[in-house]
């Protein structure tokens, strides 16, 4: 018969549990504080930077919203309660087109995102929102373009040309659903010194386009007309 009490009595089990809750809670609170107060340069990226963005620091795209942390928390709660119209972000502002435009001026962009605000592009907006740069250039993928370039189908279903220069007409190509062929002759943003070929054999091979979109090879459309800034203003 042992007079020794069991090592883990009821009271000490509760004490250990409370101690562990306290330790975990404190660690959690410290981690949250570290995240809240840390600068964007210490963020953990969710993947490799896209082509051309390798030298950028996190804070050059992920900017802090205006105001102090407290003001932002106020604005978020106030908007949630219906006391104000505009909310805020707590830590980082969403990365919008304005941030992209700070470096990529793209004058003469024939598919500029703002064009798709026009009412008649409602279907295109619903299927693949072309108003946002990140729709096709989702970041942290280590590539140049994150779509295959067949989005032309959303707006260019009617391509019947009276004076079609191609041996196989645009109308035939679109009717056959060959939307992956568009980029073999057409530079989407028009940002390169490139003239569309008029013969099928002069078109860029699709495999070359794919490699370019993945960021493996340089532009098959020739040199860019507008060179992006190397750092945002």
């Amino acid at each position, binding site marked *: 018969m042992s007079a020794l009490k069991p090592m883990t009595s009821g009271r000490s089990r509760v004490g250990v549990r409370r101690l562990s809750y306290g330790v975990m809670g404190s660690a959690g609170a410290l981690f949250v504080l570290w995240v809240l107060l840390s600068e964007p340069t210490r963020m953990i990226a969710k993947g490799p930077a896209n082509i051309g963005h390798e030298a950028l620091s996190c804070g050059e795209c992920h900017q802090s919203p205006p105001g102090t942390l407290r003001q932002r928390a106020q604005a978020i709660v106030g908007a949630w309660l219906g006391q104000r119209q505009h909310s805020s972000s707590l830590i980082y502002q969403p990365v919008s087109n304005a941030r992209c435009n700070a470096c990529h001026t793209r004058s003469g962009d024939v598919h*500029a995102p703002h064009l798709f605000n026009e009412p008649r592009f409602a279907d295109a907006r*619903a299927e693949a929102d072309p108003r946002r740069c990140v729709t096709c250039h989702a970041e942290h993928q280590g590539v140049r373009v994150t779509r295959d370039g067949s989005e032309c189908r959303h707006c260019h279903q009617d391509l019947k040309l009276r*004076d079609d220069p191609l041996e196989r007409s645009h109308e035939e190509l679109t009717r056959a659903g060959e939307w992956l062929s568009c980029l073999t002759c057409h530079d989407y943003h028009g940002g390169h010194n490139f003239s569309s070929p008029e013969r099928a054999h002069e078109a860029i091979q699709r495999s070359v386009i794919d490699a370019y979109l993945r960021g493996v090879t340089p532009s098959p459309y020739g040199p860019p007309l507008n060179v992006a800034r190397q750092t945002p203003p």
Partner: protein
Amino acid sequence: MSRWYTLTTLSLITLAIYLFVSAPPPLPDGEAKRGGRLISIDVVFNVLAKENDVVRALYTKEIVGAGKGVGLAFSESWRDEGVDAGPLPALFLREAASSVSRRPLSLGLFLGSDKPIASANLFKGAQGRAFEQMRETGHAQRFYAEDTKLHTAMYPDIASAQPCVSCHNAHPESPKSDWALGELMGATTWTYPKAEVPISEALALIRTVRMGFGDAYQAYLDKVKGFKDAPKVGERWPSEGEPALPSRAVFLERFEREVGIGTLRTLLSLDLGEVALVDEEG
């Protein structure tokens, strides 16, 4: 249990004090209202559309029309390297719209038709229906685009200059080859997220659009610099019989003269509410 209850209640009270009671000044909630009444965005659209009509007519007649007469070229592919040409009037509007889109105000400007040269510019949906109404009535059409939350106004785009009809009639892809002067060719579409704006914002919108016109013309002048036989840019116009182009300042000065006092008259006729008068004596 009661300890947890107490802890939770104290935490919530602390949070409420942090957020509301001892809080710093709140972040601005949109633009500050400066007193005076708000103006309907339709009034502002009317002003902008009128100014756009003036600048397009000026560019079409005095730059494109007169420019062709002295050997200047204008083309759809004007931006291509090696093409010594300027933008066609529709592309001039696109350049202006592009400049406007890069400014802080979310103003949209577009051009389309029910008989466009490029099928991608064909009106459909709400714009298609509104344009049908416009063909019947000849008047501007307005609606609210639910999905984008944008107040929208469409204004008639009339063939106001001979180059408009001659170029469209001659184009191989034009679905109509008998356009005539004064005919409704299409429509400009303006969009804005607010139904009403204070006078300061109305003035900012007008200024933004005028800067857009200036930037569009400047884009042409920048291209001209690389022409093999570049026309002289300064005080003179192509209509004076030689390959010359007005500078940006001269072009905009002429535009402002042709707009006249129309914009000013419209703004002065608005009921802006109480306006503090300057005391001349002190």
